[in-house]
């Protein structure tokens, strides 16, 4: 019984050892390696991404600062004068008066 079990185990191992890998396995591996190398080359370095993010943040901050620094100097009186009905004689256009 013990002998037979050993034979069965050896038989299974012998059959599994007869399996052969795909003859193109090495080509497949080389392609995977080359692909990963190309991806590495294309990858943007971390410092470049950090510099880009910092530049965008600085520009946005500068925009907000400049926007906040604007002071509106127009006085309320001057605003009143914008209504040109006070400075222009509308009666001039009254057709009936000059006919």
């Amino acid at each position: 019984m013990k002998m037979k079990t050993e034979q069965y185990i050896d038989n299974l191992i012998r059959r599994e050892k007869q399996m052969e890998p795909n003859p193109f396995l090495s080509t497949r591996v080389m392609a995977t390696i080359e692909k990963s190398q190309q991806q590495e080359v294309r990858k943007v370095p971390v410092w470049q991404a950090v510099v880009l993010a910092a530049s965008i943040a600085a520009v946005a901050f500068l925009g907000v600062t400049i926007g906040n620094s604007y002071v509106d100097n127009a006085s309320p009186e001057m605003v009143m004068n914008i209504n040109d009905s006070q400075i222009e004689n509308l009666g001039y256009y009254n057709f009936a008066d000059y006919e």
Partner: protein
Amino acid sequence: MSDEQLIHEILSGDNSAFKALMEKYQLQVFRTVVGFVHSKEDAEDVTQDIFVKVYQSFTSFKGESEFSTWLYRITVNMSINFINRNRKNRLLQSLEDIFHKPSGEKTPMEHLEDSERDHRIRKAIDSLPEKQRMAFILSKYEELPQKTIASVMNTSEGAVEQLLQRAKNNLQKKLTT
């Protein structure tokens, strides 16, 4: 070309030297992986991952041990990681093996009995404690001498002998009950 020369070429950026090294060792790696995963497709996938890992880790190979020993260490570790990751799929696959094998000259009943026996043996090998399984597979599938197995497993030859004896006894026990 010797391993040392090939490694030197690889480190200086020659990819064809790596291909030559891979072709030299791929069958050994593949056979060892088969011992762990018992399937051609899975063994090919794991072998591919192993060689990609080897290529990426070449700078960490100090040459303190032989290249083949270093390669076997990576092979064993990655095979065990693969098994641990795919436990569930492997159960389904082994059930498929029982019911969907092409019929040969044997009767369906004989065929089913053979498949069932193979399944029990694979399960018994897979259920061995990790160190016993490593020693058993390196010894039976790769027929490595105990000295080489000891250096792959970072242990003594005596310990490997004990592991192999225990593995054998455990398999007998599991398969006769």
